[in-house]
């Protein structure tokens, strides 16, 4: 299940030894730098670094490959969107940047327990309302998925089959009302979840038992990220390569 996978690998990853703040700072800096690149060579270099980091993290290949394939869909969409206006090379460059940035974010979210990540965001003065939204998104993603699964099973149990044709107006109508019902149910479930959180003492401050402490590993990781950003910048400016 999605729920199991989200934090399951974080505690088993090799990068769990790193302080969440150094992971957040290092990987976000790499993401932003990559997003700003315009030359193909540094883009490919950044893609190589992101894949190497994913490999070094110890995340299972299947888990990583499946999530990278989702990013690939976005990259494909970006390629198609840019192609008519920017040509093949620009479209390719955009896709590579999307995959590289997605890989850094995937790495960050996969190797850092969700609540530690939100705490690290708060450390960097990320707005509290956005942190709270992230926490609720974390829980409500499953609500949507679970409600949708239940309703799909209920439809199937009563003989509903749809998706054979876009002209199946009845089928599309049923799917549309199901989507509305999923939102409605998820809203009610969401309200119940927020009450249970309040009942268990949650008042908007994310607390975990993880002690934030920078160690030699963190300094090494930040130095690596800094050196990579410098190299990518030099490649971009044509000083290197």
């Amino acid at each position, binding site marked *: *299940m999605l*729920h*199991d996978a*989200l*934090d*399951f690998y974080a505690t088993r990853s090799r990068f769990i030894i790193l302080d969440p703040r150094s992971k957040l700072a290092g990987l976000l800096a790499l993401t932003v730098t990559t997003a700003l690149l315009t030359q193909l060579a540094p883009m490919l270099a950044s893609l190589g670094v992101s894949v190497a980091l994913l490999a070094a993290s110890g995340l299972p290949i299947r888990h990583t490959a499946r999530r990278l394939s989702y990013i690939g869909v976005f990259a494909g969409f970006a390629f198609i969107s840019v192609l008519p206006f920017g040509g093949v090379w620009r479209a390719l460059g955009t896709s590579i940047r999307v995959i590289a940035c997605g890989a850094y974010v995937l790495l960050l979210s996969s190797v850092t327990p*969700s609540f530690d990540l939100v705490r690290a965001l708060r450390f960097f003065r990320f707005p509290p309302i956005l942190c709270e939204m992230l926490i609720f998104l974390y*829980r409500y993603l*499953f609500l949507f998925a*679970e409600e949708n699964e239940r309703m799909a099973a209920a439809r199937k149990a009563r003989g509903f089959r749809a998706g054979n044709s876009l002209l199946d107006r009845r089928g599309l109508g049923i799917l549309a009302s199901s989507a509305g019902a999923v939102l409605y149910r998820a809203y009610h*479930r969401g309200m*119940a*979840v927020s*009450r*249970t*959180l*309040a*009942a*268990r*003492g*949650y*008042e908007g401050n994310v*607390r*975990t*038992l993880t002690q934030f402490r920078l160690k030699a590993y963190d300094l090494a990781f930040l130095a690596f990220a800094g050196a990579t950003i410098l190299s990518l910048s030099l490649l971009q400016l044509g000083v290197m390569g």
Partner: protein
Amino acid sequence: MTSISVRNVSYRYEDGTLAVDRLSFEVAKGERVAVLGPNGAGKSTLFELLMGLRFPQQGSIHIMGEDLHGGSASRLRRHMGLVFQDPDDQIFMPRVWDDIAFGPINMGLPEDVVRANVHRTLESTGLAGFDGRAPHNLSRGEKKRVAIAGVLAMEPDIMFLDEPTAELDCQGRRDLIGVLNDLHTTMLVATHEVQTALEITDRAVVIDHSKLGEGTYPELLSNKDLLDRASLDAPSITRLFELLEKDGISLGRPTSVEQAAEILRKALLSRS
């Protein structure tokens, strides 16, 4: 000492539905009381009012002598724990251990106290060895126990349990009642099952939005009119003795199979 005091409390939802109507009752420290009533009687709303998750439009609630209002709710909630009817609403974290630790961490307890609380609670709720499991893969009964453990780890003085045995199989129900009967806190249990109330609590408040009655089980079970008005069924064993009474065989109104066996044993021995 009074733990909970509810005085003339009313609550109406935004859509106009009257959930709780001029309700009053008291619960003493250490007492175990059931809130009995049919589905939709306002039991869950009452518990949310008692937890300070909603506030009554009329009347007042006092918890351990202190008035419960917007300013005091957060502080008073530290002394109370609510186990919601649906454990899926309550279970939030990806591992059983993390979910049980969620409340104590929010209370700002030191790490060693959190770890000790979680360890003790896992043991007392029969969840030892479940700490690394994903809650969403557990059975309904196990989820219920995780939800109870999550509240127990906060060491509340008062516990509210909303339909604790709903949707449980026989074994899950027995296990859960065993866990609850080992607790020594003030406890309020909302249920529509008289049998469950009998097995966990000492007396009951019967509601259907407003209060219909209050008392010990022998008193309540002898009031057929009250049970009918609240759409409640007496336990099967009590009904059997009621039927015998109608036929002129008056042996009393047992509330459990054990009591019934004792009555029958005495009756048969006295006859022989």
